[in-house]
């Protein structure tokens, strides 16, 4: 199978920058993979998305060295700041989402079908008739994701796609990704929201100063999360758990033989259970 993306020893420098944003990056992404990119601000995650989708250097300038092969027939990218991605030409959300496929010259019926499918996927049917200029940041972010999905990308790059979303909308967006990947889409996510991304990612890349320093299963390669840091402070030995269920699973049964395992934890957001706090 041809990889959707193949980078070999890629170094990229932004225009006017005195040091490279990516250095010697090599990786291959295939159909159906969900790869998350973790790293501190400035580590190069956003730049990797621009390079992976072909926007750098073509659109943003700069210089690229090494070998890059984009096997995906179409790439889509969602930026962290959704208003930068609006066409500014459409007065309804429906038209905004239809703009991409329409600009590819597809038949009208196909354009409408692609737009309404994407609108349903993102759960924004109630916004279809609204003016994008009057939406909140979170509403707009879902509109932009729908607009990119309507283009039918084979490689989808998401730059902190839930930054503007409330937790339920963020969970819904991440929950959509495995089904897109199951249909063959390759997804590359850069986000500081490591816990949420790690729930769906099949692979994690850790960047430090433009270099990939780790590449593997999320649980094996990701840095210590907030829950991990709490566990460490509470005396848990490494490796530190990534999330709450993993932390609870690390607790040994107490003297009475009772284990605080994750089966104690109901699914997130389930019914009220507020009387259980010992005081």
């Amino acid at each position: 199978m041809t990889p959707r993306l193949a980078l070999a020893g890629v170094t990229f420098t932004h225009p006017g920058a005195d040091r490279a944003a990516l250095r010697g990056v090599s990786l291959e992404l295939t159909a159906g993979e969900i790869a998350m990119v973790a790293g501190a601000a400035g580590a190069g995650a956003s730049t990797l998305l621009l390079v992976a989708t072909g926007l750098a250097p073509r659109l943003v300038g700069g210089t690229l060295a090494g070998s890059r092969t984009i096997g995906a027939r179409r790439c889509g990218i969602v930026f962290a700041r959704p208003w930068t991605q609006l066409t500014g030409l459409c007065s309804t959300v429906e038209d905004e989402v239809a703009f991409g496929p329409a600009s590819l010259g597809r038949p009208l019926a196909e354009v409408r079908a692609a737009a309404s499918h994407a609108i349903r996927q993102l759960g924004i049917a109630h916004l279809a008739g609204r003016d994008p200029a009057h939406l909140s940041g979170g509403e707009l972010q879902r509109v932009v994701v729908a607009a990119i999905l309507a283009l039918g990308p084979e490689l989808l790059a998401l730059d902190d796609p839930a930054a503007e979303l409330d937790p339920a909308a963020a969970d819904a967006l991440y929950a959509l990704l495995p089904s897109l990947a199951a249909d063959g889409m390759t997804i590359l996510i850069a986000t500081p929201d490591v816990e949420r991304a790690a729930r769906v990612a099949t692979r994690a890349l850790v960047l430090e100063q433009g270099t990939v320093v780790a590449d593997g299963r999320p649980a094996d390669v990701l840095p210590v999360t907030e829950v991990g840091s709490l566990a460490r402070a509470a005396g848990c030995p490494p490796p530190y758990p990534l999330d709450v269920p993993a932390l609870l699973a690390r607790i040994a049964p107490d003297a009475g033989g009772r284990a605080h395992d994750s089966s104690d934890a109901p699914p997130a957001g389930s019914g009220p259970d507020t009387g259980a706090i010992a005081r």
Partner: protein
Amino acid sequence: MSGWDLRIEDVRYAYAEVEALRGVSLAIRSGESVALVGKNGAGKTTLTRLLVALIRPAAGHVAVGDWDVALRRPDEMARRIGYVFQHADQQLFARSVREDVAFGTRRLGRHGPVDAVLEELSLASYADVHPYDVPAPLRKLVALAGVLAMEPGVFVLDEPTAGLDRSQRELVVAALRRRSALGVTVLAVSHDLGFVAETAERVLVMESGRLAADRPAREFLYDAGALAALSLRPPATAEIGRVLKLPDAPIRSEEVAAAMRGVRWKQNPE
């Protein structure tokens, strides 16, 4: 540095086609640290913009201390309220991070602690860099640094941790806790209940332009039913506290870690 109280009385506001605030009343005491939560489009940002006179209510009354906000311009409000926009790019314009951070305090005719604030937010190495050459998440910290240097009595912050990683988020939490300890009033719009747990003592919930709940943070974050009704999930600290039945409903990470000291850990994950 001492805080101001905030009073909002029966305030209404509409954008062209949408009624964003439908009669909201609330009061925040001087020195309180309050989180404003709610779904996208609930009216949270609109409410904060009224406080700094960026928009004017169609009806109702807004006051900051003894100032009637209706009689004040946004630049006057900056003397009392430090406002950090949801999108920091909207408030950065100087040629270097240091100049940007110094701008507000200089406009107030003061010499605020610019370098100390840059240190506090780990921005010292970016002091001479153009704000737009700073990585996007750090621009948010630059905007926050600008208002910290102004030393206002009130901070109004719109999604101060969105896009930040764990270490940057910890810097914001620590900076706000220090200001709270000095008696500064903090109102933060946030979807990040982990951040809310670490900083807020009280939570206001907005729903469709109305104030739907007003509760102590500790009680609200342990109320899985109320959170679920708002499509919110408890922060990790409260989730751990609830499942392990930790005493005193801890919500801050150091409280939870301390309450877990007696726990026996398995050496390796299974």
